[in-house]
């Protein structure tokens, strides 16, 4: 091909510009596909990073123990089953396992919290003294619940930062007496803000000793025991030791262990599936866009058959003819890709602004990939019409009306 690169681009651009509406609509087809992919992958990537941040804020050396045998990964459904309850005594025993740094018995329910005529319905978390260390959750004022592994814990309460503001405003809550359900508690501390964890608000909440919580909610079993282990130990070895102990205590292996790694893996799987679905959706939109280009270029070849004949007569090689039509398809694809990238990134940015807390994280890799795919789709869709144009018999082509 003797045609210069820049001249080819001029010819190609000229033919597309000669049919502005048509070209625009075709570009739009691709653009919507690319925008969908960019937008959804931004959301997916944002979600992944959000979840990851959620988990790592607690550290990755936690093991959750739930009563009952889970059939799949995740939370056990065995609370209603026949297995032995998970008790405070279990939690106390687990603290003696070598390598265990902290153990947090955990149970929760919603209840009304009252102070001087103000009432607020919040989560009441029954936990242990080692919770701040295990969850990397610091006390802002006062102190946390005292350790009371044996005997009855005293009615002390520690407030989440949000609840503290709601009930006390600017006043210090330390030493105040509040009512949780029907019992009276002494406020001894306030936590720092922590945010939410998988839907659990850690700030609009009150923390009381797990033993008191069990009695208050009239429950036999803890919902969970969280174990913080020494980071240098392999997690499997810790889980084996914990399982041996609990099996001995319960007479059989009737609890489920979930490590942070397990949780991340499950969530990773879910997110991968989500990404795949998104990619599939985007793929369908792109397919529609590709059909648009294929149709447009087929029409263009049919309409410009005479022109193809003329170009051949003027001395264009068949390769030049193919390149010109392929160039149009590629330009349509690229323009669609760029427009889609703009739409997608703009849309992601706007969504992030409009919906507070929506994790949006545009990925450069996906954006680049989308652009490449758009160009590829253009080339692929344009290939057949371009080859057909190149194979036209020039004499026939010149005769076409």
């Amino acid at each position, binding site marked *: 091909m*003797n*045609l*210069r690169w820049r*001249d080819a681009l001029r*010819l190609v651009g*000229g*033919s597309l*510009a*000669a049919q502005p509406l048509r070209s625009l609509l075709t570009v739009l087809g691709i653009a919507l596909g690319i925008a969908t992919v960019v937008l959804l992958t931004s959301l997916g990537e944002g979600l992944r990073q959000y979840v990851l941040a959620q988990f790592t804020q607690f550290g990755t050396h936690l093991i959750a123990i739930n009563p009952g045998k889970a059939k799949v990964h995740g939370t056990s459904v065995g609370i209603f089953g026949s297995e032995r309850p998970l008790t405070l005594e279990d939690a106390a025993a687990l603290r003696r396992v070598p390598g265990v740094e902290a153990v947090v018995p955990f149970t929760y329910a919603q209840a009304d919290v009252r102070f001087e005529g103000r009432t607020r319905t919040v989560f009441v978390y029954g936990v242990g003294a080692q919770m701040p260390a295990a969850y990397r959750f610091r006390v802002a004022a006062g102190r946390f619940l005292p350790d009371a592994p044996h005997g009855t814990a005293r009615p002390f309460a520690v407030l989440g930062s949000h609840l503290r503001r709601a009930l006390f405003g600017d006043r210090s809550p330390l030493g105040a007496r509040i009512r949780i359900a029907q019992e009276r508690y002494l406020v001894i501390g306030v936590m720092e803000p922590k945010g939410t964890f998988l839907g659990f608000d850690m700030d609009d909440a009150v923390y009381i000793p797990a033993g008191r919580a069990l009695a208050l909610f009239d429950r036999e079993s803890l919902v969970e025991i969280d174990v913080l282990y020494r980071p240098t130990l392999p997690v499997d070895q810790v889980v084996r030791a914990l399982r041996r102990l609990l099996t001995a205590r319960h007479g059989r292996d009737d609890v489920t262990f979930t490590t942070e790694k397990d949780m991340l893996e499950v969530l990773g799987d879910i997110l991968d599936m989500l990404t795949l679905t998104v990619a599939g959706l985007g793929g369908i939109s792109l397919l529609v866009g590709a059909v648009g280009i294929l149709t447009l270029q087929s029409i263009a070849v049919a309409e410009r058959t*005479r*022109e193809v*004949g*003329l*170009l*051949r*007569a*003027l*001395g*264009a*090689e*068949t*390769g*030049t003819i193919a390149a010109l039509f392929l160039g149009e398809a590629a330009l349509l694809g690229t323009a669609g890709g760029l427009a889609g990238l703009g739409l997608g990134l703009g849309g992601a940015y706007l969504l992030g602004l409009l919906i507070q807390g929506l994790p949006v994280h545009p990925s450069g890799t996906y954006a680049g990939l989308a652009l490449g795919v758009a160009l590829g789709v253009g080339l692929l869709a344009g290939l057949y019409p371009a080859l057909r144009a190149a194979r036209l018999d*020039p*004499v026939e082509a*010149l005769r076409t009306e």
Partner: protein
Amino acid sequence: MIRLEHVSRLYAVGDQVVHALDDVNLVIEPGEYLSVMGPSGSGKSTLLHLLGLLDRPDRGRYLFHGEDTARLDDRHLARLRRRHIGFVFQFFHLVPRLSAAGNVELPMMLDGWPLPRRRARVRRLLEAVGLADRARHRPDQLSGGQRQRVAIARALALDPELVLADEPTGNLDQAAGHEILDLLEAVVAQGRTLVLVTHDPELGHRAPRRLQMRDGRLFESPGGVG
């Protein structure tokens, strides 16, 4: 320059085989001006397409400067068409979205000329056909005669030695037609070979050498200067 030896071109029409060209022999020397006349369907256009290397013979040989064109591939044929042959068509065949200058520029673009050289050449060519002031006009803003003059300027863009004109006045009124023919003949005066296909005997008789076609066969007309 051109030598056709026993050239035939066959078309299948239904289950019949039609000889568009039937054992045609022809020698054209450089600088010749010849007309090809005959009723429509007699094979005039087929002969022209064949001479222009847009079509290939089914039988016989076509030698261009002594080289058998059957042996040339697409690249070679394209280069010969580009640099050695200029076409003028009955229906002008201008690209509608390009200006007069843009249409004239096309062959130079296809040949890879740099832009400044193209600009200068386009200006000279449009001046030569009397359209210097219409360079920016698109074909639909030009009269038939003007369009054909743009087409002639385009045909001459790469200074071809052979110009093939297929009923160049067929779509024009008489006055415009005569102007176009005058212009084409001026081209011949510059030492090029001109082959003019027409069904109009009056125009055809202006050529010193006249050929007649009937049913795919070629006859040299009496009075022709060989």
